[in-house]
């Protein structure tokens, strides 16, 4: 396989990196069988770990974002701690960080497929990722809570994450609208939601994973675990030949040549193609062993700051 970096004569993509890159779409397809399992609807009572609308006719697990918003709206009426949701997020986040975003999320997979249709992409600055936390705190937690205190149930709240969510529009709004039209009924998805879906589809053609990078509250939350999750990416300085293949391959625009376990990463492992970034698990034995460092070189280190 030819190196994707033009004029790069120094390095061929590693065997592991090439295998992972080829394997990922198949794993994502396989996970569709988990999330889109109509026979598994009894699992609706268990929160999933990916962004997938639970109103989808084929959904198996519950949407963690919808559960969080519903629980927040319920708080003024009944104080219930969502143990299942918190437990699921802690477990998945601590094991793999945001690896489910890159390898298991059906909505991320849709965006990956849309992104393949065009080659030119708009680069986004790293700070836009912070907006995910605005969505998480504002739209998922505080707004439903405030409207809940006003006595408005979540289903009747005019502005909510579920009413603005393009995943809900694609996975539930479109199927139910088609079903309604075929049955001769008049129910259609709202104009606002249709517009959001259209804007999302267009933007996914020119921006790689726009929802994940700017808006996804679940991805933002799971990405916080990237800094200490058991599965992580490790930098091997002995393998680095400064070809910058890692950063060139990163579809999310993360400055992986400076720091890789950051909140902008979805752990797609495309950067592992270069060989200097190695996917690995943390083991208790390794914690005591100090990493041998080479003597400080004469080269200055004055690069732009890494993404958060």
């Amino acid at each position, binding site marked *: 396989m030819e190196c994707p970096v033009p004029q790069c004569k120094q390095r061929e993509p590693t065997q592991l990196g090439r295998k992972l890159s080829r394997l990922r779409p198949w794993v994502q397809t396989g996970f569709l069988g988990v999330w889109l399992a109509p026979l598994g609807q009894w699992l609706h*009572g268990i929160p999933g770990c990916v962004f997938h609308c639970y109103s989808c006719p084929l959904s198996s697990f519950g949407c963690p974002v919808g559960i969080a918003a519903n629980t927040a709206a319920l708080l003024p009426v*009944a104080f*219930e701690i969502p*143990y299942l949701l918190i*437990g699921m997020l802690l477990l998945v986040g601590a094991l793999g960080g945001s690896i489910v975003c890159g390898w298991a999320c059906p909505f991320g997979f849709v965006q990956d497929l849309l992104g393949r249709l065009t080659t030119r992409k708009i680069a986004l600055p790293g700070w836009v990722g912070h907006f995910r936390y605005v969505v998480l705190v504002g739209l998922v937690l505080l707004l439903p809570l405030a409207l809940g205190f006003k006595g408005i149930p979540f289903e009747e709240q005019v502005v909510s994450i579920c009413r603005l969510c393009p995943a809900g529009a694609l996975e539930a709004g479109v199927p139910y609208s088609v079903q309604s039209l075929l049955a001769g009924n008049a129910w259609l998805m709202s104009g606002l939601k249709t517009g959001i879906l259209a804007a999302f589809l267009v933007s996914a053609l020119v921006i790689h994973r726009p929802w994940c990078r700017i808006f996804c509250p679940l991805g933002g939350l799971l990405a916080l675990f990237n800094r200490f999750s058991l599965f992580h990416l*490790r930098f091997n300085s002995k393998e680095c030949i*400064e070809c910058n293949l890692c950063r060139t391959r990163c579809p999310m625009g993360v400055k992986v040549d400076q720091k890789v376990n950051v909140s902008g990463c979805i752990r797609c492992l495309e950067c592992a193609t270069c060989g200097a970034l190695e996917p690995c698990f943390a083991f208790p034995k390794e914690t005591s062993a100090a990493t041998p460092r080479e*003597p400080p070189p004469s*080269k200055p*280190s004055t690069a732009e700051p890494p993404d958060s």
Partner: protein
Amino acid sequence: MKPKRVPQPPLNPALRDPERHEFWPGFITAVIGAVLLFAGARHLTGIDTVEGGSAWETQLIRAFATSGLQYADRMPPPAPPRLDDPDASAEALDRWAREQAAAAPPSWRIRVDLGAKQACPT
């Protein structure tokens, strides 16, 4: 089409942090998550079901997805007796109106309908 190569910034690989993760923070967090998952699966909420008794947390989550939450202040009143029914006279209507006026508000504020199947309308 080949991707556009990002120029290499003036970084020295030997100076870079290897980003080795410690085992215990991730492990302890994962254990806490597993314990919470187990506790959640066995968690009886303080919310009643239509059938009586408390709802499990899994039933509450399912109610979110199936429009299965009933709010007491949003429950429609019982329908009046049908006027075309020969048994439903004006006296029956009066009795129904008196019963409605004297009816005490429900003891619950919210409850879970386990039989709800309608998809979330949002």
